């Protein structure tokens, strides 16, 4: 009897201790969350206060000007959208196809391991390196000049590893039993991948794709290094056109000595944030839409 009650006391103490630790950890996590969210909100409110008054239809559709109050952002906004569109057109098919090959077709041998490790490492290479590669390869060696195509090709290289990795992740999440069910009916590998695996993996692939492109839209360094920083006062009119993008235009305005341009920069940041939020919302919507269709 005494033995049991002694043990009970010990157990209770241990439970109390664990409860305390649990609570302490919760409090700490909450504190960190508040700090992180708080600074983010502070940042956005600050930008909002500085830039909101500049947001207008004229600002969105206008072109740069020496007078801050007349300056617009259409050249950079259209530049960003065109560059991302071309980046996606280049990177998504190649990335998804590579992932399908690696995940579904390639043999699991040393070569596959080496490729795998390299892709993972490429995803972590600083973007300026891609910029230098783009400058050497696309701008100079391939003679694309400082064009939309050169910029988009550079960004495509940058996001390719991310697209490959996220697509492989999505493919790997498809249950093997689905593949077996398909093969057992006399489906070829291609039919199995195309009709069964890809539709199930699609929400994951789309999410990865949009997140990768959202990353590309905020990139500045690689585009500066291929020379997109030069003054461009018009919207791009094709793949070979010179261009600028939102982050570069923002950078340009921030570095002006006149205070009025700071308001333009803040407004530009709001436009960039809105574009990013739209893309992320699209990612979420697509994922939910296709997941609902599947279940």
């Amino acid at each position: 009897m005494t033995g049991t009650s002694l043990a009970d006391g010990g157990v209770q103490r241990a439970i109390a201790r664990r409860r305390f630790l649990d609570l302490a950890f919760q409090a700490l996590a909450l504190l960190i969350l508040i700090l992180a969210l708080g600074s983010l909100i502070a940042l956005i409110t600050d930008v909002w206060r500085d830039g909101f008054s500049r947001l207008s239809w004229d600002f969105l559709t206008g072109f740069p000007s020496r007078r801050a109050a007349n300056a617009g952002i259409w050249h950079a906004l259209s530049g960003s959208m065109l560059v991302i569109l071309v980046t996606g057109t280049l990177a998504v098919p190649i990335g998804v196809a590579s992932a399908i090959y690696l995940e579904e077709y390639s043999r699991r041998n040393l070569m596959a391991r080496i490729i795998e490790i390299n892709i993972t490492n490429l995803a972590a290479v600083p973007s300026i390196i891609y910029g230098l590669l783009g400058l050497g390869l696309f701008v100079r060696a391939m003679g694309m000049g400082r064009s939309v195509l050169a910029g988009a090709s550079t960004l495509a290289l940058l996001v390719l590893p991310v697209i490959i990795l996220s697509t492989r992740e999505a493919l790997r999440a498809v249950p093997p039993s689905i593949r077996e069910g398909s093969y057992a009916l006399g489906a070829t590998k291609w039919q199995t991948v195309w009709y069964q695996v890809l539709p199930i993996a699609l929400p994951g692939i789309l999410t990865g794709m949009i997140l990768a492109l959202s990353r590309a839209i905020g990139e500045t360094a690689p585009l500066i290094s291929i020379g997109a920083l030069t003054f461009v006062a018009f919207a791009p009119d094709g793949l070979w056109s010179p261009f600028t993008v939102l982050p570069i235009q923002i950078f340009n305005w921030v570095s002006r000595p006149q205070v009025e341009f700071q308001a333009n920069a803040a407004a530009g940041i709001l436009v960039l944030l809105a574009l990013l939020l739209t893309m992320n919302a699209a990612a979420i919507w697509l994922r939910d839409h296709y997941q609902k269709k599947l279940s």
Partner: protein
Amino acid sequence: MSDPATRLTALGALASRSSQHQHPPVDRPVKIHAESLNFSYGSTRALTDISIRIHPNVVTAFIGPSGCGKSTFLRTLNRMNDIIPGTRVEGKVLIDGTDIYGPGIDVVALRRRVGMVFQKSNPFPKSIFDNIAYGLRINGMAGTRSELAERVEESLRQAALWDEVKDRLQTSALAMSGGQQQRLCIARALAVRPDILLMDEPASALDPIATQRIEELVYDLKKTYTIVIVTHNMQQAARVSDFTAFFWLGRLVEYDRTDKMFTAPAEKVTEDYVTGRFG
């Protein structure tokens, strides 16, 4: 006599006696004929020297303790093991006299002829209709829309599922009950008109009523198909099958008419297993 040590001695005796006695003494046509089949996953041997003749239009049950190689052997019959990297097969499997591991065999065509139903039902996350239509479409077996619809209905009727789902063919297959999902998988396999149907513990995850429906279905289907069913349930084997093969430690220990296997097995290990003394 039923302790593991004696059983192992029995296995040694079996191995040295080779495989002559493993064929039931019946004079029937042969649908599937495995000859000295060995199978390994990488360096792990899973099947040793399996020889068996499986007859058409009967139900053959594979029984044996978990891990003895029933599923592995079943999957060698439609070459499903091919998709697992590093596996190796030696020996022959003749279906209608043709070695399915021989040169020039089209695995895709083989799998259409030898259908398979899995232990865990695996309907595609699509509509009921599309689940059945998939096999028809990929095999180019449905010319027109009405032909396709006809074949889908026929398969669902064969699997005794039509009356339950005819009003909701376009709803998701994942919304069905477990038993219905498994019968859908059977219908899906039947749609491409196989002549052999392999079933790997098709009722192990189902409740007794759903299990009974599957068993009745198996009984009906053997008129048209050659059926091989893996089961860990002795009563089920006794109820549904005409022939039973007992596997143990990767070998085929005994194969005979089901009634004989359950009443007067030739091997001591078989008797121990079917009477529930181990497994």
